[in-house]
């Protein structure tokens, strides 16, 4: 056997690669090991371990922080699928702690209270990959520049109102299409306007897609919501409060998994939408005063 290259961990390829394996799947927010088991049994591709789902963070108010390590440990032990956990925007020490716990992905999340209103975490310094939220293409590319290995288009978490998620995934899609239609010599100014590095802007213009996987999140409460996000171009969906704040979490979790796979088949969608009981009680985003909108956090 010839000398082979030494194995290397924490490379961009393996960080982005895990997100590739999650595609077409549903990532569910869970607050207990029992909920994590329910999510895994329903066919979730990963779980997000947190102390309070966004609907409760919203209702209870106050500063929302990283979860208790004991709670994250309990969820890691309960399931075989990847476990994600949230750190506050810019809180690189929370991220160091979460990496130490052995989670598979860190979400630098606007659902928690930001710890730094200027800088996000320098995600290249970590072996564990990060997912970050974005409301537009420039924001997505800035997060990728900082080392994000996966993007989720933001919705308004904890509302059950899918309209913000729709707006942001449409925005990102439209901005990518507009970029792809530009001439080479127009990309310099496009990079300036997007406030993103030229090399990355040129790559998106050439390939017509982000260089990382993009899920969508925030306000997804029904199988139809999940399927709509997939039809709008998401690679998969995060469901937060929508499952465990509903009347029948087990059936709803299974139904959203099925709808995410067969998002283009209305016959399947009709079937899985039946008999799910009460959806989570929603809040219309338009009723939330602007300072309390989570999607506006991050820049």
């Amino acid at each position: 056997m010839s000398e082979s290259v030494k194995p290397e961990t924490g490379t961009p390829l393996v960080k982005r690669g895990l997100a590739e394996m999650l595609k077409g799947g549903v990532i569910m927010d869970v607050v207990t090991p029992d909920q994590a088991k329910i999510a895994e049994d329903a066919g979730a591709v990963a779980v997000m371990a947190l102390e309070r789902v966004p609907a409760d963070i919203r209702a209870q108010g106050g500063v929302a922080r990283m979860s208790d390590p004991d709670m994250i440990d309990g969820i890691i032990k309960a399931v075989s699928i990847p476990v994600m956990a949230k750190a506050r925007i810019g809180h690189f020490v929370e991220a160091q702690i979460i990496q130490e716990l052995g989670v598979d992905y860190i979400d630098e999340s606007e659902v928690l209270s930001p710890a730094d209103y200027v800088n996000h975490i320098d995600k290249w310094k970590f072996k564990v990959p990060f997912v970050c939220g974005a409301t537009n293409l420039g924001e997505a590319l800035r997060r990728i520049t900082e080392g994000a290995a996966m993007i989720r288009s933001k919705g308004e978490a904890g509302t059950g109102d899918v309209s913000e998620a729709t707006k942001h995934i449409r925005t990102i899609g439209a901005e990518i299409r507009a970029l792809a239609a530009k001439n080479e010599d127009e990309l310099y100014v496009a990079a300036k306007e997007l406030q993103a590095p030229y090399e990355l802007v040129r790559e998106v213009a050439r390939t017509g897609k982000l260089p990382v996987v993009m899920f969508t999140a925030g306000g997804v409460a029904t199988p139809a919501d999940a399927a709509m996000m997939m039809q709008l171009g998401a690679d998969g969906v995060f469901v937060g409060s929508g499952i465990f704040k509903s009347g029948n979490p087990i059936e709803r979790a299974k139904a959203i998994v099925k709808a995410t796979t067969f998002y283009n088949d209305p016959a399947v969608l009709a079937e899985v939408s039946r008999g799910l009981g009460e959806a989570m009680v929603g809040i219309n985003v338009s009723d939330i005063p602007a300072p309390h909108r989570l999607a506006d956090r991050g820049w």
Partner: protein
Amino acid sequence: MSLPVGVLSLQGDFREHLQAFERLGVAATGVRTAAELANVSGLVIPGGESTTIGKLARIFNIFDPIRDAVKAGLPTFGTCAGLIMLADDILGGIDGQETFGGLDVTVSRNAFGNQSDSFEAELQFVGIGHPVKAAFIRAPIITEVRGADVRSTLEDGRVVAVSQGNILGISFHPEVTGDDSVHELFMREFVK
């Protein structure tokens, strides 16, 4: 050869497999239903979450057709979660986790640890004349080989690729590294 190669497209990185075949000039198509399965010359089970792929296959009534087709000799290639799905025995599965089977081996899920232990490496591979670029992502390992042939190991001897009759199973992802030589080998040796 008239029929395309199928890629099971329930969940995971099926698009990367379709792109690998496209780069090789091989016709390939997504498979989600038993009817689609009946019209392919070979089948790839992609990377993804084996628990999710198994459940979706069961729910959408393609689980038994795949198991039967693999048993009947359909050329089949599994990567990572796909290897788990093709193993007769698994370790570290969830309660009641089912596999299609076909490879007389035991496969251990998430054998390297969590995502921080995921890695890239280059491997010697029986039947391929150069090192293969491989990405191991929360990868499984083949802990016991009974009726299958070993095709590749890590430097420490742990088995990461096997074949048996019509089936090729590997614990890594050539489809995300852009190294198409294992797909080329699958076409050359198995689909023909």
